[in-house]
């Protein structure tokens, strides 16, 4: 099964379009990955929103460590790590992980991983990750 993880960024929606796209690279990665996905499963998730002083949730020193662990789990297709994710801390850091934790509980194995995007342009950690899984 194909599974695609993308951040639920409102700026990607057409009703919030600007003349200069503030998320052009992310949009490109999402569009390409969505083409690949076909009728696979789409999961919205992102890391913390507290990575910098100007981040939506302001700076929290715990954000970087949390995101590093989450990113490592996504890159490794580590379902066990995702199931163990600290959802209380995730909520405190404004990380959107609920769907990710839920899907990790349903899956048995990730057989291939492709990371298309890994950045935090506005103090929010985004990933675009393709999984082949069962």
């Amino acid at each position: 099964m194909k599974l695609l993880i993308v951040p639920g960024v409102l700026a990607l929606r057409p009703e919030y379009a600007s003349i200069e796209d503030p998320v052009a690279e992310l949009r490109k990665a999402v569009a390409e990955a969505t083409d690949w996905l076909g009728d696979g499963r789409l999961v919205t998730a992102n890391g913390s929103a507290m990575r910098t002083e100007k981040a939506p949730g302001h700076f929290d020193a715990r954000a970087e460590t949390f995101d590093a662990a989450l990113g490592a789990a996504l890159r490794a297709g580590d379902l066990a790590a995702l199931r163990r994710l600290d959802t209380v801390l995730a909520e405190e850091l404004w990380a959107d992980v609920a769907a990710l934790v839920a899907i990790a509980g349903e899956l048995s194995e990730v057989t291939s991983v492709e990371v298309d995007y890994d950045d935090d342009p506005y103090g929010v950690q985004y990933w675009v990750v393709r999984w082949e899984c069962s």
Partner: protein
Amino acid sequence: MTLKLGRQSFSDEATLMMAIVNRTPDSFYDKGATWAEDKAFDRVAQVVDEGAEIVDIGGIKAAPGVFIDAAEEKERVVSFVARVREKYPDLVISVDTWRAEVGRAVCEAGADVLNDAWGGADPELVDVAAAFDAAIICTHTGGVTPRTRPYRIEYDDVVASAIADTTAYAERALAAGVARESIVIDPAHDFGKNTFHSLELTRRLDEMVATGWPVLVSLSNKDFVGETLDLPVGERLTGTLAATAISALAGARIYRVHEVVETRQVVDMVNTIAGRRLPQRAIRGLQ
């Protein structure tokens, strides 16, 4: 309506800054600051840098003053137009003139637009525009003689008069062979009008826009702003921008201005509020 101004075309939603460049020693606002040709050329460079799509080059101040014949007017503007054209091949060059003779000479030198601020005083100007595939600005003056001040002029309905005269002028231009997308109308604030007339034209500008002809407004630092706020030339920018905002909301397409940057910001802000333009770059709350 899509606008074709000589060598350039602009989409339906585009608003355009037409920067005033005077080749005069006595215009009311700059008082001869760009009378020296190199100063005028520097002014062109400045307004292009500020994002103006059009320069409007004028060789005669609008107000009464020393008589300038066609030969002297050409002396002031023709070679300058050629110089600007050579340096800026894509810039839209407008020339503020009512004389067909001058219009022909500047079109030969590379002008794209004939800005007839005096409402068709020379009936052959439209033929020149047609011959050179240039655009024409059709203004309303209430029929006054060029370079005269309004004196006890009254209208039954100044907006109706402006619409009737400018659209009749536009139709005349069309009949003469000027392309439909190259015809613009201008209510001409302060020209043949007192302050109350110019205020009413601003308030009811949507009626001119509703004619379907693209509308140009020339508001910059004019007396109707000065009289409304009791402010001299040099202190009228805020009032000008307020009138600009109202005109933008009504749907004006071209803004003839001294201050390009400030006007562009106001027009873009208003058109974005009106839902006709996207924000330049919005991410707040959308990350």
